[in-house]
């Protein structure tokens, strides 16, 4: 009887998904193959990192690419690095998309979704802003016109904060 209760409790505990990433928490490590060589998040410490989770089938993700290019161009010299982690389960979908899209920032490939699991991605696209100290300053889901202004303000703040 007691064993059964323990089993039920264990089942419930296991079904509760991993905890969400919260603001102020240090960003979990990401180590993935990129387009030219391996990408390690911890190596970008000292820079503000705009971390984006995307897939080729996701419409809003597509819309965010020109904006991410713009942000990289505008704030790259000031210490911003945009890192977009691809979560396509078929890597060829991603390469097809990347051939047609201008990308001026880092791309990491994660077909298994291990990083998404680590960051407990709740929707596509999901993005996080990581300060120069490696701590998460913003967690954002989705992408639309309203996101742009909000995220740019956060980027400026993150770049200022680490000076």
């Amino acid at each position, binding site marked *: 009887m007691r064993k059964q209760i323990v089993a*039920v409790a264990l*089942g419930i505990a296991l079904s509760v998904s991993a905890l969400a990433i919260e603001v102020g928490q240090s960003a979990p490590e990401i180590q993935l193959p990129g387009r030219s060589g391996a990408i390690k998040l911890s190596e970008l410490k000292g820079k503000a990192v705009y971390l984006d*989770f995307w*897939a080729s089938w996701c419409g809003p*993700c597509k819309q965010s690419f020109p904006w991410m290019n713009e942000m990289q161009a505008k704030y790259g010299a000031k210490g911003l690095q945009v890192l977009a982690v691809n979560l*396509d389960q078929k890597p060829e979908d991603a390469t097809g998309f990347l051939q047609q899209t201008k990308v001026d920032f880092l791309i990491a490939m994660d077909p298994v*979704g291990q990083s*998404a699991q680590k960051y407990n*991605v709740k*929707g596509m696209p999901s993005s996080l802003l990581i300060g120069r100290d490696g701590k998460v300053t913003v967690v954002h889901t989705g992408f639309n016109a309203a996101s742009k202004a909000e995220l740019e303000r956060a980027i400026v703040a993150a770049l200022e904060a680490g000076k």
Partner: protein
Amino acid sequence: MKALQRIALGLALSAAALAASGCASITPVRPWEKGILAKPEMTFEGDTLDLMFTEHILASREGAAGGTGAGGGGCGCY
């Protein structure tokens, strides 16, 4: 008689425990795994505009979102 009842209760309880732990092993499709669900042929209706209207009505009248294909805008946001 009492012993029989106890056995029956035990059986019922273990069945319930089994059923409950069975649910725990079902992992929902994660947001980043919705690539196939996001395909247009996975929606209930053929016409995107029609689907958008339906979605709008459901969202504004019932406060419901998602459930058609991969979510609101086909982006798996929900």
